[in-house]
């Protein structure tokens, strides 16, 4: 039985009918994750011993029919910027290489009540800053579809873990596309929920007005199950929302917008063709399709690369060698801080801190950060107007298929452009999902992104699941599919 390819619902059914046990699944998962490490380096740590105990307790609950829900005994991988109590949270940074979290992130507390098993912590671009997982201080992760290529980022370890069947699903975080882009590069589903619908408490902050935790999974239904478990209001996060979900039309009376600016220059022909394939399916099903224009999307990289670094420079000021993390000695406190931050941060993190410091510095604040904030507000207004006409917006998830390791490391701006399609949803706080649609001529996965207005996460998942069934994308990376 190919347990590792099954969905969460299918596995739960096998546990309930006693055709397999959580401990048997966990043994397979551990063997796979341990054996995939040499080729992929998806994980920074694996929790074998504690997990065997947890899996056996799950066995007992199923044997006594005391199991608690769909995620009982399901092994999930956790991005290493999310705190699990008494485990390391390194953020793939030398700064936090020895940091052991004294508390659980809210998403972990919620998954604990579901009796989920955590396979381990996954690799990421340092402090989630990057699009390829090459910015990790602990070595790059490789794409299971072709190890010459990157898995995307920053949640590249989580995506590689799920794609190589080293976990059933994973948590990532998404500030400018860090869930959706690696999911697309690895042939998976990646879901960034509405901003504020999943607590950020215990997620190491990068850019607080943009960061959001969400699932990476093999199917939309698996993403829905994980999202249902981790979402909800949390008083420990001041940006957490407590609003009811809004239901969107789902069948033929829904209107679909194709974002004109994300089908123009800078988007590969292959990425455009995937969107056209989806349009054809929707037309055949009788949906109303229209081209829509959001002119500010063309400036989203500029807006993002002022707001995100500004917030990053403030958030990462806490790493000063005093309370936690690395310390490099100096004769004075100031010298100690400067040396600690020089030694602890990698190039990309330094680049963004310096850019953010510049954008916030006296004399520049209004013309850089202030202007970016006002442009962001205008972009939010553009989306609000479009969502009066359309229920769902469709675009490519990424301008191209996955790129080769090392291809963009010397050109930061080119690397930033790989998030062109995903950044707008973060700036506007929208729910957005990437679903796999097909393979490129290089046999690498491609995907499309679907966005909808805030608080329509459940409708977006239902609509995406309908498309997923129509697309019938069943390809898996060779060597990891069984």
């Amino acid at each position, binding site marked *: 039985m190919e347990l590792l390819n099954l969905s969460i619902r299918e596995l739960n059914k096998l546990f309930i009918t006693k055709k397999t046990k959580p401990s048997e699944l966990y043994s397979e998962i551990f063997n796979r994750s341990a054996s995939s490490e040499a080729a992929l380096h998806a994980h920074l740590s694996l929790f074998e011993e504690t997990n065997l105990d947890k899996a056996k307790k799950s066995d007992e609950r199923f044997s006594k029919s005391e199991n608690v829900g769909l995620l009982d005994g399901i092994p999930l991988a956790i991005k290493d910027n999310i705190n699990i109590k008494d485990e390391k949270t390194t953020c793939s940074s030398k700064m936090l290489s*020895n*940091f*052991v979290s*004294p*508390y659980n992130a809210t998403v972990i507390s919620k998954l604990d009540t579901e009796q989920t098993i955590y396979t381990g912590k996954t690799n990421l671009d340092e402090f989630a800053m990057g699009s390829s997982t090459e910015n990790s201080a602990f070595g790059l992760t490789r794409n299971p579809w072709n190890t010459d290529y990157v898995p995307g980022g920053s949640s590249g370890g989580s995506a590689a873990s799920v794609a190589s069947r080293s976990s059933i699903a994973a948590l990532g975080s998404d500030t400018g596309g860090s869930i959706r882009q690696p999911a697309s590069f690895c042939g998976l589903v990646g879901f960034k929920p509405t*901003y*504020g619908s999943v607590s950020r408490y215990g997620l190491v902050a990068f850019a607080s*007005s943009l960061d959001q935790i969400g699932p990476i999974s093999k199917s939309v239904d698996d993403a829905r199950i994980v999202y249902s478990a981790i979402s909800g209001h949390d008083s420990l996060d*001041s*940006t*957490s929302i407590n609003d009811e979900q809004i239901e969107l039309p789902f069948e033929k009376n829904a209107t679909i917008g194709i974002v004109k600016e994300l089908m123009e220059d800078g988007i590969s022909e292959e990425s455009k063709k995937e969107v056209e394939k989806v349009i054809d399916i929707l037309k055949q099903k009788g949906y109303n399709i229209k081209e829509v224009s959001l002119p500010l999307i063309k*400036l989203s990289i*500029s807006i993002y*690369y*002022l707001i995100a670094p500004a917030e990053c*420079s403030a958030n990462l000021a806490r790493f000063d060698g*005093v*309370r*936690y993390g*690395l*310390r490099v*000695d*100096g*004769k*004075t*406190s*100031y*010298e*100690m801080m*400067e*040396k600690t*931050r*020089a030694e602890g941060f990698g*190039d990309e993190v*330094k*680049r963004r*801190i*310096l*850019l953010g*410091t*510049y954008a916030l*510095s006296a*004399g*520049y604040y*209004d*013309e*850089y950060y202030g*202007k*970016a*904030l*006002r*442009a*962001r*507000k*205008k972009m939010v207004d553009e989306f609000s107007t479009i969502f009066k006409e359309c229920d769902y917006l469709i675009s490519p998830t990424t301008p191209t298929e996955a790129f080769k390791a090392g291809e963009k490391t010397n050109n*930061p701006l080119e690397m930033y452009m790989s998030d062109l399609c995903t950044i707008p949803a973060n*700036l*506007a*706080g929208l729910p957005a999902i990437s679903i796999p649609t097909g393979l490129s001529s290089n046999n690498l996965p491609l995907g499309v992104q679907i966005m909808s207005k*805030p608080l329509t996460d459940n409708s977006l998942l239902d609509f995406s699941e309908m498309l997923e069934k129509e697309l019938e994308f069943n390809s898996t990376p060779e060597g990891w599919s069984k």
Partner: protein
Amino acid sequence: MSKKFDITNIAKLASISLSDDEKEKLSNDLSVIIEHVQALSDLELDTNIEDVYIHPLEKVLALDEDTEKPSLTHDEAMSNAPKVSDGKFIVPPSLE
């Protein structure tokens, strides 16, 4: 948006010491990025900064009630500190 980019001053504000090689490389990288974001300078914006919310859903950030709640213990809060003495963080002197 065309003032000179002074990497030494920005690094000092960010409390990061940089080698001369790093200064040159980062200065070049940042100049390219800043040139790119200049695209915003031509944008006509009628929104006042006072009307801009930090929360993208335009929510006011929630304040917690001012009541005592369980939290980390003192030992837990100090557990990752690089240098501790008698329950306090130890740092080098501020002045030489």
